C-alpha cells in the first residue's frame, strides 16, 4: 500500500479550523445579528463535514499543539460518531427556533456550546478536557436560564453549582496525576495514586449524569425549555460520558468499574422512567438510563450515542408541542396524529425496533457484552420498551389540528424531518445486525415490554421520593461516590 502520510497533513489544519470556528462565529454573531441563524446552521454543516472526513480517515488522528505541555488532540471514529450526533442535534435546534423570537444571545450560546462539546470529543489531555467541560457548564447554565424566570434561574444555578464542585474535585485529581508523571495525558491515570482516578471518575460521572451522581439530570431537563432539554439530552450530557469511554478504552483496568456504573445507571434510570407520570420527566429519566447503555460497551458506544441523540431530541421537541405533559391526562384527550408519529418513531428507535437506528445500536451493544452483563442489559431493554409504550399507546386523531399560539411552526417540522430522516438513514450504519435471530430478540423485547406495560399500567404511577434529587444530597452524594470509587479502583484494578 502507498504510505498514508498525506491525509493527516491536510486534516491537521482542518481540525484546528473546525475547532476554532464555532467560537469565532459565536462571538461575531453580535456584529451580524441579522444572520445569526444562518451562521449557526453553517457551523453545524462544517461539523458534519468534519465528522464524515474522520470516518474515512484510515487511522486515528493525533495532534500535539505547541510542545510537550501543550494541547493534545485525538480524533478517531468514536469521536466522529459523537461529533455527528452533536452537529445534527444542534442543527435541529437551530431549525426549531428559526421562526421563534429567540435573540442572537441564544444562538451565540448555542454555537459556543456546540463548539465546547465538540472540544471534549477530541481532546486528549486532562487540562484541555477541564476547560472544555467548564465551558459546557457555563453555556448550558446560560441556555437553561435564558427564559429568565425564577424557576429556570434556580435550576440553572443548581446545575452550575453541582458541575463546578465536581470540576474542583477533578482538578485535585489532575494535580495528583501531574505530580506522578509530570504530564496531563490520559495515560497518566495509570500509576498515579488511587485517589487520582477516583476523583477524576467521580467528576466525570457527575458531569455525564451517571448513576446517583446524575440525579441532577431529571429536574434540570424538566424545568428547561424543550429545545434546551433536547440539546442537553442529545449532545451535552455525552460530553461527560465521552471522556469516561476514552478512559475505559485507554486503561483497560478501569473498564470494569465504568461498565458497572453503566449497568447501575441503565437500571436506575429505567426504574425512575417507568414510574414517572410527567412526559418530560419520563424522557429525562430515560436519558439517564440510555447514558448507562453507552458505558457498558465503550468500544461500540459511538453508534449508540448517535441513535439515542437523534431519537431523544425528536421526542423532547415533540413533547414541547403537546398541550400538556401529564401522561394520565394525555391518555384522556387524543393528540394530533402529526405529533404522535414523531413520538412513536422516536420511541420505537430507542426501544430498538428494526429499520430504525436504535436497532443496530442495541444489537451492537448487546453483542459486545459478557453473558451476565447481557442479562442485566436485557432487563433494562425490557424496561425501556415498557417505558416507551407510554408514548406509543397514546390516543390520537388525524383530524385534530393545533391552532393558536400552541400550533407547531414551520421550523419545528423542519427539525423533526431532519432528525427522523437521520434516524432512518442511520439504520443502515450497521447492516450486519439484520439477522432473523437479532430481529426476533428485539421484537421479543418490544412485545414483552408492551405486555408489562399493559399489565402494570395501573401501578406504574408510584410517587418516587425526590429527596435524593435535591441540591444538598447531590453535593453530599459526591463524597459518598468518592469513597465508593476509591474502594472500587483500589480493590478491583490494583489487586
Amino acid at each position, binding site marked *: 500500500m502507498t504510505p498514508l502520510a498525506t491525509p493527516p497533513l491536510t486534516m491537521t489544519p482542518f481540525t484546528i479550523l473546525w475547532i476554532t470556528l464555532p467560537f469565532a462565529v459565536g462571538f461575531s454573531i453580535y456584529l451580524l445579528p441579522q444572520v445569526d441563524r444562518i451562521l449557526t446552521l453553517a457551523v453545524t454543516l462544517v461539523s458534519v463535514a468534519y465528522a464524515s472526513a474522520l470516518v474515512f480517515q484510515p487511522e486515528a488522528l493525533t495532534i500535539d499543539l505547541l510542545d510537550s*505541555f501543550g494541547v493534545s488532540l485525538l480524533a478517531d471514529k468514536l469521536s466522529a460518531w459523537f461529533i455527528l450526533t452533536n452537529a445534527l442535534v444542534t442543527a435541529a435546534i437551530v431549525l426549531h427556533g428559526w421562526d421563534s423570537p429567540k435573540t442572537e444571545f441564544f444562538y451565540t450560546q448555542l454555537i459556543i456550546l456546540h463548539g465546547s462539546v465538540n472540544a471534549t470529543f477530541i481532546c486528549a489531555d486532562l*487540562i484541555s478536557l*477541564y*476547560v472544555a467541560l*467548564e465551558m459546557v*457548564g*457555563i453555556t448550558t*447554565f*446560560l441556555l437553561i*436560564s435564558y427564559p*429568565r424566570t*425564577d*424557576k429556570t*434561574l*434556580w*435550576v*440553572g*444555578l443548581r446545575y*452550575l*453549582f453541582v458541575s*463546578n*464542585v465536581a470540576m*474542583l474535585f477533578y*482538578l*485535585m485529581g*489532575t*494535580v495528583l496525576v*501531574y*505530580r506522578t508523571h*509530570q504530564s*496531563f495525558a490520559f495515560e497518566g491515570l495509570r500509576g498515579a495514586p488511587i485517589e487520582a482516578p477516583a476523583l477524576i471518575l467521580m467528576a466525570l460521572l457527575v458531569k455525564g449524569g451517571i448513576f446517583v451522581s446524575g440525579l441532577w439530570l431529571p*429536574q434540570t431537563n*424538566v*424545568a428547561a425549555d424543550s429545545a434546551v432539554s433536547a440539546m442537553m439530552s442529545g449532545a451535552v450530557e455525552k460530553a461527560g460520558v465521552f471522556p469516561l469511554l476514552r478512559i475505559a478504552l485507554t486503561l483497560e483496568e478501569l473498564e470494569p468499574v465504568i461498565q458497572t456504573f453503566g449497568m447501575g445507571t441503565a437500571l436506575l434510570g429505567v426504574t425512575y422512567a417507568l414510574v414517572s407520570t*410527567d412526559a418530560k*420527566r419520563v424522557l429525562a429519566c430515560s436519558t439517564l438510563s440510555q447514558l448507562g447503555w453507552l458505558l457498558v460497551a465503550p468500544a461500540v458506544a459511538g453508534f449508540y450515542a448517535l441513535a439515542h441523540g437523534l431519537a431523544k431530541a425528536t421526542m423532547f421537541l415533540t413533547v414541547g408541542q403537546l398541550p400538556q405533559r401529564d401522561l394520565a391526562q394525555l391518555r384522556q384527550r387524543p393528540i394530533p396524529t402529526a405529533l404522535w408519529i414523531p413520538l412513536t418513531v422516536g420511541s420505537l428507535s430507542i426501544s430498538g425496533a428494526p429499520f430504525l437506528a436504535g436497532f443496530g445500536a442495541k444489537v451492537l451493544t448487546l453483542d459486545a457484552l459478557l453473558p451476565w452483563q447481557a442479562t442485566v442489559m436485557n432487563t433494562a431493554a425490557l424496561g425501556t420498551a415498557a417505558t416507551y409504550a407510554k408514548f406509543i399507546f397514546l390516543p390520537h386523531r388525524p383530524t385534530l389540528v393545533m391552532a393558536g399560539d400552541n400550533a407547531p411552526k414551520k421550523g419545528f417540522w423542519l427539525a423533526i424531518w431532519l432528525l427522523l430522516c437521520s434516524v432512518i438513514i442511520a439504520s443502515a450504519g450497521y447492516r450486519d445486525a439484520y439477522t432473523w435471530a437479532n430481529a426476533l430478540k428485539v421484537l421479543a423485547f418490544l412485545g414483552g415490554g408492551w405486555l408489562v406495560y399493559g399489565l402494570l399500567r395501573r401501578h406504574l404511577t408510584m410517587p418516587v421520593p*425526590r429527596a435524593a434529587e*435535591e*441540591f*444538598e444530597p447531590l*453535593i*453530599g452524594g459526591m*463524597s459518598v461516590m468518592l469513597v465508593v470509587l476509591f474502594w472500587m479502583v483500589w480493590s478491583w484494578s490494583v489487586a
Partner: protein
Amino acid sequence: MEIGGSTILYACVYATILMGFFGIIFKEHLVMKIIAMDVMSTGVVALFVLVAARTGVRTPILTEGASSSYADPVPQAVILTAIVIGFSIQALMLVGVMKLARDNPTLEARIIEKGYEP
C-alpha cells in the same frame, strides 16, 4: 513517617478544601454557599501551587549561574486558567442569586428548592 513542613502544608490545604466542601453542604444561605465554594477552589489552587513548589520555590528565569531549585511553572500556568474560570462562574452565580433575591429575600436554598419543584 516524618512530619515535615510540607506535610503540614498539605494537611492545611486539604483541610481548606474539606471545609469549603462542608460549607457548601451545611450553610443555608445561598451567598454563603457560593463563598464556601470559593474557599474550596482556593484550596485547590493552593494545592497546585504546593505541587509546583515541590522542587523549589525560585522563579524559573534563565540567568548566569542558574539555580536548579526552581518552582515548576506548568501547574502554576494551568491553575491560572482554572482561577479565571472559577472567577467567572462565581460572578455568574452571584448575578443569578441577585435576580433570585427579588422574589426570595431570605435566599435560603432549602426554601427556594421547595418553591420551584417541578
